């Protein structure tokens, strides 16, 4: 031990005159920009999907209702409440947030004597609500997939010349990847008219348990194969994933499950119906609503007879939707399952002609009216009377029946809904087959962003050569001296609805166009053909603006008669399926009640 070692330590005394490092006022010193402080939530963009709750490993987050936030499609109306007696500030909730609404401030001081005070709903009135700084994730979410798995489909140049199905369907590997993106929030379930257990069957795809998936599908929808192809998939508009990326391809995944289960296995899984009850129900119309009701009733053991005026069952699914979207075999398989439940379908049997309503009322315990909308509406602009003007639904029915339909080289379609797209694309295919080129013009009142048709329909129509003119109001079907159609005159639409929200299109008369074509097809909507009811019953029933009035449970004013489907509600397959279930439940309740009374 030398003297040097004793003295050296004293050299640090030189620091005695250094500036002190003490922070003058440390309380409330601002934290770094990225600091993970207390939570913030943008109430407007939060959708209450509960993914934050699902990922929180501390069970610190509760989903609670908040004043002023209403439940609506794509927003559960719930908001996260955070328990700071649990939180560990890991910010996984921020990283996983589907909308990016949940962030963190860089505020960190919260002192309280009451341990119950450390719970709050971020986004209401915390002082750091509007703080700019604090943790936000870099870019879009990375903890779940953003982009939809691409669905292989036939290129336009191949598909335009035939009626073969366009999309291929997912392979197993693709389906797993797509199913993996789902966060199981369940926002879609209430949006689906039939309340299908979407997250559950997607989970079944993920687990490759197709049997379970199929059972889940059949709990709520006997037309899963149809819906897997042509459903309007409102669920995908409420999907939490669409806020940063693509919604989950719910429809394709549904189809994938059905594709993976062979028909025989399907029958096995669904099992046998219950023991016969001896009750009989007549259903008029073999469309989705009628057949769904038939399925439910038959499974409960009731005897069901479905009366169908046309030569095949399926209703609009067969006669409205073209084959390239829904192959007939797919539909036949779904109907086959229903028939296997013991449902009798009498085709070519028109009520009112081959059998009367009175007879049905007499022979059956209940009658369900599910006649759908099968008569096309007309625009009633000048020139629509006479040859060369067709209704889309009539044409589609004739195409399905294999009839020869007139195929002109150029034609004009009026309407912006799915039916308009269907007929435009069907006619385009026929034109291709006949002339080798497409000459379809489509006009609609709405501008392109407000078309009622599905987005992909519009895209695919354009790909197939359909020319779309949006915001055009039809004024007259132009005819030459001989009376033959030469085109459609339209004005540009300034607005469709008036100040009160009533339908009253306003036109810009200066912007006039003549769309050339030797045929005009109207596809602006349909109505029900209620002539089968006959006079006495029509008189007896209560009506509501041309539709039979029903209550919330699908009862008409006649106790034995129920009505469901497009004829009373609308507007698509999945709604019809939902109606079918509900009317079936009402009928079963009624039958059970009658049993008790007797």
């Amino acid at each position: 031990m030398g003297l040097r070692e004793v003295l050296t330590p004293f050299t640090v005394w030189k620091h005695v005159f250094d500036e002190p490092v003490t922070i003058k006022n440390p309380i409330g010193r601002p934290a770094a920009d990225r600091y993970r402080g207390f939570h913030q939530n943008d109430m407007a963009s939060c959708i209450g999907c509960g993914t934050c709750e699902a990922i929180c490993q501390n069970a610190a987050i509760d989903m609670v209702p908040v004043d002023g936030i209403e439940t609506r499609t794509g927003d559960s109306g719930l908001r996260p409440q955070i328990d700071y007696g649990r939180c560990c500030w890991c910010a996984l909730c921020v990283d996983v947030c589907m909308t990016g609404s949940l962030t963190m401030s860089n505020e960190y001081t919260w002192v309280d004597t009451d341990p119950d005070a450390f719970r709050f709903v971020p986004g209401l009135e915390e002082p750091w609500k509007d703080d700019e700084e604090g943790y936000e994730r870099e870019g879009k979410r990375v903890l779940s997939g953003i982009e939809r798995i691409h669905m292989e489909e036939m290129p336009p140049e191949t598909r335009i010349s035939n009626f073969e199905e366009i999309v291929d369907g997912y392979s197993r590997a693709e389906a797993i990847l797509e199913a993996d993106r789902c966060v199981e929030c369940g926002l879609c379930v209430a949006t689906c008219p039939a309340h299908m257990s979407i997250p559950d069957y997607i989970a079944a795809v993920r687990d490759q348990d197709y049997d379970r998936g199929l059972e889940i599908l059949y709990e709520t929808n006997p037309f899963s194969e149809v819906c897997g192809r042509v459903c309007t998939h409102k669920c995908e508009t409420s999907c939490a994933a669409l806020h940063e990326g693509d919604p989950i391809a719910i429809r394709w995944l549904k189809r994938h499950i059905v594709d993976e289960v062979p028909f025989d296995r399907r029958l096995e899984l669904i099992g046998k119906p219950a023991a016969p009850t001896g009750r009989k129900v007549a259903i008029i119309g073999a469309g989705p609503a009628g057949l769904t009701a038939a399925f439910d009733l038959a499974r409960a053991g009731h005897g069901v007879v479905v009366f169908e005026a046309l030569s095949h069952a399926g209703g609009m699914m067969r006669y409205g939707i073209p084959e390239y979207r829904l192959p007939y075999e797919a539909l036949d398989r779904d109907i086959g399952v229903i028939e296997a439940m013991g449902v009798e379908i009498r085709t070519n049997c028109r009520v009112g002609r081959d059998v009367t309503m009175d007879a049905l009322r007499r022979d059956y315990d209940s009658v369900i009216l599910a006649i759908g909308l099968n008569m096309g509406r007309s625009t009633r602009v000048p020139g629509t009377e006479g040859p060369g003007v067709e209704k889309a639904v009539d044409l589609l029915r004739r195409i399905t029946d294999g009839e020869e339909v007139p195929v002109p080289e150029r034609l004009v379609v009026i309407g912006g809904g799915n039916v308009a797209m269907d007929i435009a694309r069907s006619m385009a295919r026929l034109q291709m087959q006949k002339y080798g080129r497409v000459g379809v013009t489509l006009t609609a009142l709405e501008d392109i962003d407000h078309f009622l048709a599905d987005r992909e329909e519009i895209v695919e129509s354009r790909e197939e050569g359909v020319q779309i003119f949006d915001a055009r109001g039809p004024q007259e079907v132009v005819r030459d001296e001989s009376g033959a159609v030469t085109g459609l005159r339209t004005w540009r639409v300034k607005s469709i609805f008036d100040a009160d929200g009533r339908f009253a299109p306003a036109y810009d008369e200066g912007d006039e166009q003549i769309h050339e074509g030797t045929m005009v097809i109207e596809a602006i909507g349909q109505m029900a053909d209620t002539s089968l009811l006959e006079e006495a019953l029509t008189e007896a029933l209560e009506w509501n603006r041309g539709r039979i009035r029903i209550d919330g449970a699908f009862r008409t004013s006649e106790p034995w008669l129920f009505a469901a489907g497009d004829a009373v509600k609308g507007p698509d397959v999945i709604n019809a399926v939902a109606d079918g279930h509900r009317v079936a439940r009402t009928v079963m309740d009624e039958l059970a009640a009658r049993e008790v009374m007797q």
Partner: protein
Amino acid sequence: MEMRHLHALLKQRHSLGQLEPKGGKLAFVTVPRENLRGLLTELRDVHGFTHLVLLTAVDWMEDGLFQLTYMLNNRGRDMTLGIRVMLDRQEAQGDSIHDLWPTAATYQRELKEMFGIDFPGSPRIDEEFILEGWTDLPPYRRDFDSLAYSQQTYAERPGRVTHDPREYMKSKLYPDGV
């Protein structure tokens, strides 16, 4: 491939199972309980696996087995070998190796406390190690449910409710339940 070479060398003598390589530097192999001691001694004294990295157990409750994992490392050749010994879950008794590596005694004490696997002869094996006054199942066993125990033993702060978005939406949008 050195690891394969080593495996081939020892396979017969110690009735080793299949070698399961994980990359070039790490491999796992199963050995019967009676061959463990011989294998460890040979690996340590002859093949340079002098460092006992860890000793732990995995509970394969469904199969009725405990897996003991002895992780040995050869620093010079940068090889790590995980040696698995399967024990009957009912018996749950292993062989102490505290004389090969004194530090193994600590691991064995932990295994005794946390899994209930006994190592007769290991120093202080019956003393409490981490837990104090523990009366329930050894906590690392799969059949011990931590959450249930916690809820039963310690009070949670009451007053929290949560809602499932799926059911809540249905009840709000379809109050009739349809």
